[in-house]
């Protein structure tokens, strides 16, 4: 009797386990079915090219003897190459100025738009976002016109005061010329993300703060900004990744700023020149990889320092 029930119980347990196993298998299968197509693309256009780039970067093509394995020679060459180093130094410097500037403007705009609820404010929100809808290339073309001595308005405007127009395409001011293009292009996008985050904040919090005697300024700095810190960090990461890969704007302005922007102005431009103008794919890959390494280290360091504030990764 007892033996029988025990047997039965064991069999039942075994069966449920089998069913549960089936459910699990089904869930694994369905999960991979949904993720699968993306996984294929991910492997084909991210994992494979990255692996291949790493492989390529370990070889050197020589005039005599063909292609040979040189391990890290290309990297040693890159990190002692003044062209690569000056480009990397430029994008680092540029990031340190442009990212706080863009995000600062975006934050101020988002806070204003969150506080002001007129029709004009709604109109402004769209207009400020507009540059993001413009391809970076076209944005650079437009600003290139505005900067140009031939048909830009700067000459006229400064002429009114009897002054000479600053040459934003000259080597002294190109940093600021590019800074302006990038800020114009991206501040509105970051503003929209921050604004969306602000809209998600529970308004009863402001009520409570107001009861406690907090002013508008205090509500903004003590409540709103801390609450949208995750969104701020998210856009900081994106702008960091984007700025270190700087390519489109200088590449386009290069045509107008002959002599100011060389082919090695940023690491990405240098890699492009090595690969596609000089057919030196090995060294081009090594530069790309070295740049990727720099991006990764910068982003990782940033995420490490802000790990308490973020919630998105």
């Amino acid at each position, binding site marked *: 009797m007892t033996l029988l029930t025990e047997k039965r119980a064991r069999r039942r347990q075994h069966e449920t386990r089998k069913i549960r196993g089936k459910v699990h298998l089904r869930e694994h299968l369905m*999960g991979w079915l949904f993720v699968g197509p993306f996984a294929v693309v*991910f492997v084909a256009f*991210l994992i494979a090219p990255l692996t291949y780039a790493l492989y390529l970067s370990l070889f050197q093509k020589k005039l005599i003897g063909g292609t040979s394995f040189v391990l890290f020679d290309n990297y040693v060459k890159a990190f002692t190459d003044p062209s690569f180093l000056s480009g990397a130094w430029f994008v680092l410097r540029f990031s340190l100025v442009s990212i706080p500037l863009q995000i600062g403007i975006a934050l101020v705009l988002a806070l204003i738009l969150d*506080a002001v609820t007129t029709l004009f404010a709604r109109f402004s929100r769209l207009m400020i976002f507009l540059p993001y*809808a413009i391809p970076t290339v076209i944005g650079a073309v437009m600003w290139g016109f505005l900067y140009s001595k031939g048909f830009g308005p700067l000459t006229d405007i400064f002429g009114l005061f009897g002054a000479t127009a600053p040459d934003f395409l000259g080597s002294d001011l190109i940093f600021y010329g590019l800074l302006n293009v990038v800020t114009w292009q991206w501040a509105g996008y970051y503003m929209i993300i921050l604004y969306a985050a602000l*809209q998600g904040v529970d308004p009863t919090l402001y009520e409570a703060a107001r009861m406690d005697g907090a002013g508008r300024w205090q509500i903004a700095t003590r409540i709103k900004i801390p609450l*949208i810190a995750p969104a701020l960090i998210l856009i900081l990461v994106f702008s960091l990744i984007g700025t270190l890969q700087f390519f489109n704007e200088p590449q386009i302005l290069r045509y107008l700023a002959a002599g100011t922007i060389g082919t090695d102005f940023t690491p990405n431009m240098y890699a492009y020149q090595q690969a596609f103008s000089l057919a030196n794919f090995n060294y081009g890959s090594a530069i*790309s990889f070295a740049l990727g390494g720099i991006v990764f280290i910068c982003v990782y360091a940033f995420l490490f320092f802000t790990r308490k504030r973020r919630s*998105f990764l």
Partner: protein
Amino acid sequence: MADRTRVRAGARRPQRYLPLQILLGFLVIYFLVPFWWVIVNSSKDAPGLFGGGNTLWFTDQIDYVGNLRQLFTYDGGIYLRWILNSTLYAVAGGIGATVLAVMAGYGFAKYRFAARRFSFAVVLGALMVPATALVIPTFIMFSRLGLTNTVWAVILPSLLNPFGVYLMHVYARDAVPDELLDAARVDGAGEVRTFLQIALPLMRPAVVTVLLLSAVASWNNYFLPLAMLSDNRLFPVTVGLGLWQGIASANNSGGTSLWSLIILGSLVSVIPLVIAFFSLQRHWRGGLSVGGLR
């Protein structure tokens, strides 16, 4: 929810703060100046463009029609081809990337499958990979396969959108309740039907956002087609205008007529995206907030 209550409160008592609005006004002018300049100057012919005079105001002669005709007939109507190419790349790349991202985001959010956490971590790591670092090896791989200088060389790599997957994952996790999916399963709906009829409508704001962001990314892409394509009849409008700008800058006097084409060409090329953003803005703004908040 909070959003709606606030809008209602705002409608009752609009918050004005005049000094802030004046500051806003100045900033709006800054953001609009390049558009204004392009709109004004695409009305001019080459002498009007280079003849001095006010560059921020119209000349007596406003000739949009003539300039447009010139733009669309120059070099055998190559400009129209570039616009159509851009449209193809944006539509194919945008829809493809969105389908993949929505499926993967939903899969990551709603199924506990083998290597899920690891795979998702890898996808997040991919956000940090500079997109341009992929262009050189992808170019060599494609040239081995004979795919360079074809439309596939531009469309296939733009199917990859890890950020879209991340956005969809966050959104599906929060907006699609597990109980609802279970209820649909109990009622006998298969997994695919549950996804299409229950989950997908709930994820719509995020789907529109991902679609718009992927399409814009494809439309704006410059580095990839610049590297992949050599036949200018396959160029998207970004690479095409870059080409014209290079030509116009190279020959200072011979390029004058080309400059007015570039200016008008820039204006025309931004119109589709501006329309897309404005007509869909109600949808994409809701989708954007998820990425940053939770």
